């Protein structure tokens, strides 16, 4: 019963918000619903921690891994809602571009992502994953500009095709399960598949074929490199709170789906095949995105490529396996969400005050927008993996695992790309922060919503870099246990 609550709140809330035409009332209702949702998700996480697993009907289930990702969703969506409440004051009034439509679509989007994390059935997972694409397409094209429409169209088409391939992979896995003797109803259920995996793995060809299609399909949503073409456009042209949601939450949900399939396939045919594929995609994404960071001219596109790079790092962590690799991957998923949200919040502020996102058009913001530039600096240092911040811990864990497994090529590429990215970020940020500003420090004080959102994010990065809180560590361990 409890599992239905965090699903019902966003759906009903979306309908509720549409009833309020006044933007301020809609915003307040949205914040209230957001708080309720976070509470519901917290209750689910607490129950899973107490009991180990929650089930509801055939299609919903929450275990350690789900609750870890749900916690991440709750945290980031809270920050985004708080930030958006202030950001939308700049939004114009259009027939479909008013704040109430914005919040309604955001809640629908959240509904689909939470369903992905709560699904027990692979078919349901697919349906909800396609739902995330559909729910966010209108959000990406929210501003009706040429760039936004192009980005939205590309996003919709590329992701739908990718997910169609993931459907094919799901079907092939279902076929393998049915051939191994499972009943049709159980052949799509994750727990039953995990139990019967060794039996299914007796015919490895179908299982391997299934995983190839799944990693290509869901990998399109994650942003792995040959299939990443939609990502920079979508993340750059969407409104800033949506960019944060896409980068920080949606990519994680897609990675969650890949993790579920990886668990089944590893148990069926052994970890070598799936982990090799994950390593290949991860290293390629990291290297290509890291190199492309150097030539970026748009601030949000720069951050989008950074997201691709970090998803590559998470994939490397998953592909390496082992306790440290898994620990690093899961922790990195969370840390990256927080850091990327902080960066996008800062970028949103920059856009409102300087009215451009081109890096060569932004100068001297350390003087014209001191608080925002401090946030950007913190975010930038965190995202390249420098020590006092939490990403250093997760990247160090993954690197240690690579050393332990004597995969020296991975280590070298990892370190080289990290250095290159550090150089790139330093170069771009130096150009933006220093120099003579075009505008004075007018109206650049942060309003409370922005303060709260960016402050929480920044302090979380610092805090987690120092030590991981006890409860968080417990949840992390439970998540790892599911995958081992």
């Amino acid at each position, binding site marked *: 019963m409890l599992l239905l609550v965090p699903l019902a709140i966003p759906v009903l809330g979306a309908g509720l918000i549409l009833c309020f035409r006044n933007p301020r009332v809609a915003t307040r209702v949205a914040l209230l619903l957001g708080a309720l949702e976070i509470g519901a998700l917290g209750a689910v996480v607490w129950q899973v921690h107490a009991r180990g697993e929650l089930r509801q009907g055939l299609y919903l289930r929450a275990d350690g891994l789900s609750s870890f990702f749900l916690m991440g969703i709750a945290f980031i969506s809270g920050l985004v809602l708080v930030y958006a409440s202030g950001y939308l004051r700049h939004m114009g009034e259009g027939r479909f571009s008013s704040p109430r439509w914005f919040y309604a679509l955001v809640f629908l989007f959240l509904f689909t992502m939470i369903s992905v994390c709560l699904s027990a059935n692979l078919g349901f997972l697919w*349906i909800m994953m396609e739902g995330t694409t*559909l729910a966010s397409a209108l959000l990406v094209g929210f501003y009706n500009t040429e760039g936004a429409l192009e980005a939205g169209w590309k996003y*919709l088409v590329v992701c739908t095709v990718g997910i169609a391939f993931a459907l094919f992979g799901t079907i092939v896995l279902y076929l393998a399960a049915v051939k191994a003797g499972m009943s049709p109803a159980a052949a799509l259920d994750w727990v039953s598949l995990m139990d019967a995996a060794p039996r299914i793995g007796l015919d490895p060809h179908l299982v391997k074929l299934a995983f190839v299609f799944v990693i290509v399909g869901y990998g399109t949503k994650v942003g792995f490199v040959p299939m990443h073409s939609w990502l920079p456009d979508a993340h750059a042209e969407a409104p800033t709170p949506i960019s944060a949601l896409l980068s920080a939450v949606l990519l994680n949900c897609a990675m969650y789906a890949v993790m579920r399939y990886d668990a089944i396939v590893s148990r069926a045919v052994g970890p070598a095949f799936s982990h090799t594929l994950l390593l290949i995609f991860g290293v390629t994404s990291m290297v290509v995105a890291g190199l492309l960071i150097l030539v970026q001219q748009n601030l949000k596109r720069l951050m989008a490529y950074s997201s691709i790079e970090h998803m590559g790092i998470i994939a490397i962590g998953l592909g390496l396996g082992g306790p440290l690799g898994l620990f690093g991957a899961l922790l990195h998923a969370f840390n990256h969400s927080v850091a990327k949200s902080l960066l996008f919040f800062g970028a949103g502020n920059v856009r409102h005050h300087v009215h451009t996102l081109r890096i060569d058009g932004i100068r001297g913001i350390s003087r014209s927008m001191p608080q925002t530039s401090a946030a950007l600096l913190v975010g930038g240092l965190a995202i390249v993996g420098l020590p006092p911040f939490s990403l250093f811990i997760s990247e160090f864990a993954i690197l240690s695992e690579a050393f332990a497994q004597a995969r020296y090529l991975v280590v070298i590429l990892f370190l080289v790309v990290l250095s290159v990215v550090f150089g790139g970020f330093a170069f771009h940020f130096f150009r933006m922060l220093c120099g003579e500003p075009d505008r004075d420090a007018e109206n650049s004080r942060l309003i409370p919503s922005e303060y709260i959102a960016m402050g929480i994010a920044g302090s979380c990065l610092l805090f987690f870099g120092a030590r991981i809180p006890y409860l968080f560590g417990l949840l992390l361990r439970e998540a790892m246990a599911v995958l081992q």
Partner: protein
Amino acid sequence: MGLVGIATEKILSSFSVFLFLTILLLAVARRISTCVLLFSLQSAVITAEVLATAFQEKLVGVYVVGLLVFAIKVVAIPRAFFLLTKRLKTVRDVKASTTPTQSVFIAVAMIYLSYAAVHSYGQAVQVPDDALAAAISLILTGAFLMVSRKKALMQMLGLLVLENGIFLAALITTFGMPLVIEIGIFFDILMGLLLMGIFTFRISDTFEHLDVSKLRRLRG
């Protein structure tokens, strides 16, 4: 029921022929309305195959799926496409980036590739070669249409052909997944098409054309 039985058997053994014909005709079609009509015929052939499978395997759920396919893909979606082309007042040409001869040769190559793929994987499943090869050729054709046709509506149609192929592959090998999942998949596809329709309207309003190859502002 002897006649129905015979008809079912004939449908199951020869429907792939008609799918190959629609694939070849899709490769050479030059107007959007022709392509939509071909898609509708293709879906009708697939409906026949679904109903024949349901009759032979005596699965009630598959009957429902067959009716859904007919209602959605043979009737609703083509009508929506025709309405869309009328409302958008777009030029009717398909704007292919390959000549008809090249397209047909590529279609032939894809059919050959799908047969080759079925030969290597076909031992794993006991299904007739033709049917599975038809499904895989549909997938490849859908992808080819999306890549080589530069109109937004043709990209939507290519996506639909791709989904047709995946659906057919699922049906042939596993006689359909659980009914609820199938309905969910249909619903998703419908929503996806609805959204794409909305986007084409907006693109047509903003850009004054529907040529996606000209949507190249964002690069790098």
